[in-house]
């Protein structure tokens, strides 16, 4: 049990059981430099590209092919050339033993528009 107030309080200590002081070197770390931020972020794993969102519905009940497990619970945004006034977000999750893909169309805020 680390007692962080140990240095300030006047406690009776038992011989042999004193809490050791933290080594100074652990508090002397240099702040991380900006060269880490210059690197590109890690690439998106390729299996996340296999989304079912582009699947057209086979029937009016909205049946599509079974999604891969890896794409579940990931939020996708539609890749279309700008400017768009409406953007599509897609998400697939499992409900009990069936899969549900929801595609939500949202308006894109126009520049300079202050309305919510």
């Amino acid at each position: 049990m680390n007692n962080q107030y140990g240095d300030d309080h006047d406690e009776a200590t038992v011989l042999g059981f004193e809490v050791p002081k933290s080594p100074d070197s652990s508090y002397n770390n240099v702040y991380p430099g900006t060269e880490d931020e210059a690197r590109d972020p890690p690439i998106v794993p390729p299996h996340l590209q296999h989304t079912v969102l582009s699947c057209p519905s086979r029937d009016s009940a909205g049946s599509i092919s079974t999604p891969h497990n890896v794409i579940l619970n990931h939020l996708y945004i539609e890749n279309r050339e700008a400017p768009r006034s409406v953007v599509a977000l897609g998400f697939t999750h499992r409900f009990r033993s069936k899969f549900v893909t929801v595609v939500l169309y949202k308006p894109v805020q126009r520049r300079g528009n202050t309305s919510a």
Partner: protein
Amino acid sequence: MGNGEAIPQASESDIEISRHRISAFLSTHTAYELLPESGKVIAFDINMPVKQAFHILYEQGIPVAPLWNSYKSQCVGVLTALDFVLILRELGNHGSNLTEEELETHTIAAWKEVKLHLNGQMDDSGRPYPRHLIHSGPCDSLKDVALKIFQNKVSTIPIIHSSSRDGSYFQSQLLHLASLSGILKCICRHFRHSSSSLPILQQPICAIPLGTWVPKIGESSRRPLAMLRPNTSLSAALSLLVQAEVSSVPIVDDNDSLLDIYSRSDITDLAKDKAYARISLDEMSIHEALQLGQDANSPYGVFNGQRCQMCLPSDPLHKVMERLSNPRVRRLVIVEAGSKRVEGIVSLSDVFRFLLGLA
């Protein structure tokens, strides 16, 4: 039904037995069965412009979409073809009061408020009465879902799973859009191999009190079946759809032979031409409006059997039910063999009204 010729009517006991078994099936199965193995639901944020929404409905080929409120993180309604019909009529009423800019940005939320106002569902200070979303959960019985759809006179209701974790975080998941056709499909699938348990299914539909029929000579008390000619204006057609509270009207020639059918959902074809507001509903005929939705220009007089699903008065009920299980088919026009004279219409809600024994 009394139509002069002696067509034997289905026996009361056959009807009662069938109704009882179907009711038992619907009460013991849940809405979860309506979900496909892998399903897709398309929803709109309620702050999206209506113009974009109808264009997407047309693009995706869907007649209805649930509405999502991002701030409340929940489903707050649906947008249907009827909304589009009402908007067009409203735009027609106000003429050019709405500028092009306003049309571009007229959101679904704003339209829904206008709609409440039009329906007199606002109190004196202009605040809307709180409306609760009509929906069902995945554990609700199929019978409850069917009754809810039927009694609220809607075509679909969203299936929403509401869960609260720790009682504090309330989560609402949109799962599926349930319709009567999906429920009918469940019924047909279940009873397909035991058709003898539902004796009424073998009866021809002319022997069952089902659907709307053209009254025969001498039956003046019967409500007439609404029909239109191809050169009727679109505004007259839309008014008829709204006033008669029907979802479609057969289009017939001078001999009452079936040519085509105009449905409320056909209105989304107008969204193909983004300038829907500039279309004059009085000047466009329904024939022209239907041309908009067709890829190939089929000449006037060529019958499009795909659009217009027909059946005969002698067809058995189970055949009619199988065909109505297709979500794209919401009604069948009953025609006389050969001449295609319209004798009646049987819709999805007619079948449920009969099977569940509702008024």
